[in-house]
């Protein structure tokens, strides 16, 4: 697991700690590249592929954040379920190849980019400018605590989420149901 004490001196590139840093950079790169593909590619299947790459990267980041459980859930749910569902829908619904700029006007692209850059930049500046409080506690990555919390403090939310999922499944079935005539 990741050591809790901040390292004073930057590690050498080819030391073990340096390697960890490099892997982190790779993860960041994977996430950003994946996200870029996901929102920019012309074909939706490639967008899904980008999404998967992005989520694998995000899962890697979660691992760096000391929670392997959430990292694995990220892969399991997003890649194994959400991405599969989306690609299934793509295969069923056969979307047109997407033009970079939608029909609603040539300004949509630059406008979207502007908005997105503004939001991302604003948040980044906010994040850097703010003095975040020092570390209170560091999670040890155990599942037990998550489980206990889920079933005590957050049991109501847990139940609600279950109901939401159930309703989502039923709703999805009802909406997408096609009468097959034969």
């Amino acid at each position, binding site marked *: 697991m990741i050591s809790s004490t901040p390292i004073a001196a930057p590690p050498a590139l080819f*030391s073990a700690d340096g*390697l960890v840093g490099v892997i982190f950079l790779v993860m960041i790169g994977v996430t950003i590249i994946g996200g870029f593909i996901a929102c920019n590619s012309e074909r939706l299947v490639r967008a899904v592929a980008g999404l998967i790459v992005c989520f694998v990267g995000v899962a890697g980041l979660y691992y760096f954040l000391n929670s392997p*459980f959430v990292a694995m859930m990220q892969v399991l749910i997003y890649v194994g379920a959400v*991405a599969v569902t989306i*690609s*299934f829908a793509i295969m069923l619904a056969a979307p047109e190849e997407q033009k970079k700029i939608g029909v609603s006007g040539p300004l949509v692209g630059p406008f979207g980019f502007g908005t997105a850059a503004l939001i991302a930049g604003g948040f980044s500046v906010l994040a850097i400018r703010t003095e975040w409080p020092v570390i209170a506690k560091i999670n040890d990555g155990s599942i037990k605590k998550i489980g206990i919390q889920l079933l005590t403090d957050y049991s109501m939310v847990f139940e609600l989420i279950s109901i939401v999922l159930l309703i989502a499944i039923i709703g999805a079935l009802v909406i997408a149901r096609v009468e097959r005539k034969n």
Partner: protein
Amino acid sequence: MSLTLLNVIFAVVVAIAFAAANAAYLVWAERRGAARIQRRPGPNINGPFGLLQPPLDGIKLMAKQLIIPGGADKVLFIAAPVLAMYPAIMSFVTIPFSDTIVAHNINVGILMIFAFASTGSMSLIFAGWSSRNKYSMMSAVRAVSQSVAYEIPMLITTITVVMIAGSMDLMEIVHQQSRSILHWNIFPLLGKSHNLLMPASFLIFFICTLAETNRAPFDLGEAESELVAGFHTEYGSMGFGLFFMGEYANIVIGACMTTILFLGGWSCPFGLFPGVWWFLLKLYLLIATFIWIRWTFPRTTIYGLLNLSWKILIPLSLVNLLLTAGLIKVF
């Protein structure tokens, strides 16, 4: 921390080697086994018992040209076979072969293996979609519904085992079973739960493993008499080779999981030789069963397959889950 990471990298290399060697020689074993079942000799010309056949096949595949069909999505077309191989290799990292032989044991080992296994179906989707072939496309659609349908009973059955062991750590699960043969999860008597349905649970898990690895009788993705070769119809050369190896690597992972979850991992019924050999023995017996089943049964239909999952396996595994939960409370 850093040492573990190096360990992991080293282990990944070992895992790749192990997966590749297994895949190659399982192909050989499959061909020999199938031949014996059909009363043929099988590959027996190259080397003793035809043991040089797999490397020669590999050389042949590598020497071939990778043909990308016109109109195919090149990036995904090339990415798909790689995607087929990597989950299995990643999963090897966390599988404990014995008390000490494990690359990197993490406390959510089961979750990790399932997480990576679930990405495997993406490879089929991409391969099927990008090939620009209607057969491949149909195969991809089938593969999705199949993997979705069988992940559910598989996970539910796994949760039963996790409940009994009280941990998602593969080491812990094996330790919990290692007292005697009767503590194995497949045998209900001395285990924590005393659940008499555990053999059924084992069977469900085994069937799901067959389905998840696209093995006969659930090889609908590549149903060769219907969809020509399914998602890898357009693949030749090493692209096909990677799919092929990926299939066998997945089989090994599936068999490893079955061994760990139900057959007590490396724990020995009687201590003739060290645990790792017991593990391998159980592993290869299971794989032999895979091969045996493949050459015995005809293929199911897609609706038969889904019916089996939704009408039989999922209800049974749910019943089993509830029963186990109740029994753990009682005892």
